[in-house]
């Protein structure tokens, strides 16, 4: 797979490390979340067959975190974003 890095351009996916579903950006609020919320956040996944937004880390490159939209049935990558931009759009401070 080739990942079209927003800053660096097309890079081999072997340079990256995979974390998982990008829903992990949306962490429960530690002041109000219940143990059940944390369980669901830490352990349950949608695991869709089709479009999947996921976190990749450019470990062998500029060490940026990316949110990649990829089809799990075809491995086709349709969108690559800087994770920080995505998180800020969701209201996170960083």
């Amino acid at each position, binding site marked *: *797979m080739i990942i079209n890095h927003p800053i660096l351009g097309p890079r*081999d*996916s*072997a340079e990256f*490390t*995979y*974390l*998982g*579903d990008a829903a992990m950006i949306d962490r429960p609020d530690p002041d109000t979340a219940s*143990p*059940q919320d944390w*369980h*669901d956040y*830490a*352990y*349950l*996944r*949608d*695991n*869709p*067959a089709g479009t*999947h937004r*996921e976190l990749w880390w450019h470990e062998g490159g500029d060490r940026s975190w990316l949110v990649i939209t*990829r089809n*799990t*049935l*075809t*491995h086709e990558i349709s969108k690559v974003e800087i994770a920080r931009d995505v998180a800020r759009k969701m209201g996170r401070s960083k």
Partner: protein
Amino acid sequence: MRYSGFKVIKEALTGHKGWAPAWRDPEPQPHYDIIIIGGGGHGLATAHYLAKVYGEKKVAVIEKGWIGGGNVGRNTTIIRSNYLLDGNEPFYEFSLKLWEGLEQDLNYNAMVSQRGIMNLIHSDAQRDAFIRRGNAMMLNGADAEYLDLDQIKKEYPFLNFNDARFPIKGGLAQRRGGTVRHDAVAWGYARSADSRGVDIIQNCEVTGFKIKNGKCLGVETSKGFIGANRVGCAVAGSSGRLMSKAGMRLPIESHVLQAFVSEGLKPVLPGVITFGAGHFYVSQSDKGGLVFGGDLDGYNSYAQRGNLPVVEDVCEGGMAIMPMIGRARLLRMWGGIMDMSMDGSPIIDRTHIDGLYFNGGWCYGGFKATPASGYAFAHLLARDAPHPTATAYRFNRFETGHMIDEKGMGNQPNLH
């Protein structure tokens, strides 16, 4: 029809006109006591033990494609019970014992071959860890044997003993481990279950569950609604896809694992060998091909094919311990979809929906577990209580903190 040597000779002399299909091809009945979704190794094994051990009479196995066409038809065929943790080892040892009696139980030649498995040790710390694992295995009634360097040189003279980076320091052997003809496992269980009255319904896709007031009443399929008192799902690899139809999210990600077969060679490998410093395992099939594999590709996938970086990594692992493998040509390679769970261990449990049961999360160790998985799932479906060897495989272990994490990797499925 019972198979026997006498039957083979008789048929050979009479033009092979007396063989019948090994299982029927029935249309679904409107209602069953128990429906099992998934006609793979685990689903068919469940049906066999339900009928034979638990005396269930009205059982159906529903399969989207043809039976044995999923991961039981695309794996590296290794059986072993060399686990460390209490939640796992008794279960896998139970499975290995069932493998040892499988062919007599099924009256089917599954080519169970206890040619042994040997895990190589490359550092002093690894030796300590493997000896500890060997002791855990023996405490649970399994066999384990520590091999020193001289024994390894004698038994496996072709290994690379001159590797400065990953020197071979010893090995942990399980002589009762080995390989099994994987397709024959599915066919043998199917034939046995069918002969005991289980309906095996192929080319019938489950499109949804009928759930009313928190109780599962049956399944919607491409052949119409089929009612059931209890529904068991055994579709590892596609568990996320199936269970989402019941509104469930699972502690599982689907990942692709690649495997490889070389051209046929004369016998060169005495058993299964695993590399302890990278991830590489290899055995030789009875047809002569070297069957080997390594790591997951590492990202969510349902594509049943992987990418080239892992091919390179696996082949590097092979060359590191067994340079002669470089002389063999690769014949074919494939990818299968694994249910990678959050702690690397499986789940055999009820769901929060009455009458709906789940078997999955086998990571890439499902094949060796086939008999015990079927047995334990049959026990759960018939008795509504977990089998004594599978009491740890519950959904709620992630809530209570009782994870069964052999490698200590945490909730990162691609690292298990």
